[in-house]
């Protein structure tokens, strides 16, 4: 009898615990690189557990999947890629892993820039059909966010409203970011906005914010430029008196250092193109990255 009473009492005590709604497991999301992972986190908040295949400061162009990546993709509810040809391996890895979740192409709907950037007169390269670095224009990033929001909502309809509300808040912050970048560059006369980078990844930024950018290496090339290309670029830099030179966080930048030494310029800092910095770095989120890039560009151009 005593045992029976204790059982009933225990059951009554346990009732509030059992009746409390269970916190849903966060959806597992794999993003191809750290910038997309950050956008997913901003929209999915604690409703998602995000993993970036290419993490902070990691070059995406030469990405080689590891066994653990394959496992992560196999277990993912959502996989987000940039598209525009950036992740040529994405379909293959998703099929190999037996991915059955929601596939999101973040750049869907973006009006892409065609590739074919030259690196000084006479240096022309065919990199593929489209320049994939569309997130470098905040207006495009807003499309990315909308696609991610829709993808998360499709994978997790119960949280669609929450994803939508978080996306709206994030979109408002992106609007503010866009205004901030324009304000940073506004005091610099248009004709002085000329920059050299170690990687041809800033065409969207250049076009959106009125900066002319030359790159030492092409968007799809891991190799350093040839002597011919470098020679032409040195001549162009001297001719146009370009003094603002920047390294990119992923990649060696050897050619840019050679260029800087040839033209007697100093390297103005490190731009973030394809990857965020680590958590303690200056570009630990997409917004921080864009703010950092615009900030050091503006500072270098003002000093000219």
């Amino acid at each position: 009898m005593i045992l029976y009473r204790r059982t009933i009492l225990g059951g009554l005590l346990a009732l509030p615990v059992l009746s409390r709604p269970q916190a849903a497991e966060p959806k597992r999301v794999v993003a191809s690189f750290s910038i997309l992972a950050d956008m997913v986190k901003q929209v999915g908040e604690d409703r998602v557990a995000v993993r970036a295949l290419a993490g902070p400061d990691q070059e995406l162009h030469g990405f080689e999947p590891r066994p653990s990546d394959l496992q992560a993709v196999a277990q993912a509810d959502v996989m987000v890629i940039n598209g525009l040809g950036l992740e040529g391996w994405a379909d293959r890895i998703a099929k190999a892993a037996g991915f059955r979740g929601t596939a999101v192409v973040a750049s869907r709907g973006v009006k892409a820039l065609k590739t074919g950037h030259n690196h000084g007169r006479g240096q022309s390269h065919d990199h593929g059909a489209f320049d994939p670095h569309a997130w470098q224009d905040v207006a495009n990033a807003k499309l990315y966010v909308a696609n991610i929001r829709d993808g998360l909502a499709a994978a997790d309809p119960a949280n669609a409203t929450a994803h939508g509300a978080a996306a709206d808040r994030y979109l408002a912050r992106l609007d503010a970011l866009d205004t901030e970048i324009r304000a940073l560059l506004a005091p610099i006369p248009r004709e002085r906005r000329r920059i050299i980078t170690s990687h041809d990844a800033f065409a969207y930024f250049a076009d959106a914010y009125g900066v002319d950018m030359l790159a030492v290496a092409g968007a799809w090339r891991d190799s350093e430029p040839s002597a011919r290309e470098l020679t032409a670029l040195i001549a162009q830099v001297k001719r146009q008196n370009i003094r603002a030179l920047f390294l990119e966080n992923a990649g060696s930048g050897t050619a840019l250092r050679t260029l800087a030494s040839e033209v007697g310029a100093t390297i103005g800092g490190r731009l973030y193109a394809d990857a965020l910095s680590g958590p303690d770095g200056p570009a630990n989120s997409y917004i921080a990255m864009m703010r950092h890039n615009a900030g050091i560009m503006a500072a270098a151009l003002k000093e000219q």
Partner: protein
Amino acid sequence: MLPRPRFAVLLLLPLVFAPPAAGQVFDQGKVQTREFRSPAMAAQAAHGLESENIFGLTLGSDVDPAGSKSAALEVGGRIGTRGGRYAAFGAKLEFAFGVTDHFAAAVSLLGGWRNSSNVPGQADLNALAFDGVGAELRWRFLERGPSPVGVTLHIEPSLRRIDERSGETGFGWAAENRLIVDGALVPDRLFVAANLIYDVEAFRPKGSPQEQASTGGVSSAMAWQVRPGLLFGADIRYLRAHEGLALDRFRGWAVFAGPTLFWHFAESAWLSASYAFQLAGREQGVANTFDLGNFPRQMLKFKIGMEF
């Protein structure tokens, strides 16, 4: 639990053996493209074309920058003459290098194949031969870009053991000289060029006295960049043939016209092709619509090059 490292790599095997796309996992949709809003970026994206070879038979003014190296194979054809059957194809294997940003040089090996029969004044011939050696010197006085037009002097001397036209053996020399002017009518879209032409040649066939000839003329070409690295165009040229090295005794004239193609088909490789036919001409002392004594009925040029 993660598999032990030794076996973890086995997980990557499906990547190797996964069948290529039967249905895409990621659907990009149809990608719409747009042009650059910034004219400077648009100009940059539209290729800073090197103009030397984009006009076909007419040359452009750009000069290989200092330290650059390139190789090219050029095949030129001359087809048709007055009477009989005539076709001559000359090949030039060229290695070029930029000495300074405004002076480039090249050395070349010359070869050729000639097939002629029943051509008045020429023995029937069907032969492939090594012709000689050549060089190319290009001085640029004005650079396209900083200046609205580029101006370059092009001198192309050669030593030959076979007469380019008749195929006779002997010894001779020649020089193709051009004063080149070019520019962009529509930036990075429409290019135009003009060449002032002065070619000289002297050849002594075995057992015969030396023959000297010169050709003067002008050519003009335009090329339209239909997409980055791909240009179509047209070339027109007016040529006057003379005896003697200094445009001495007039022998005839001809006008040629035809289409051109330039394609930068790989990161460091390009090809150029052009065809021209004789629109009109007159050989001195011969009543004919064309000058087929001094010039061919049709000319071809194909050149493929690679930069290092």
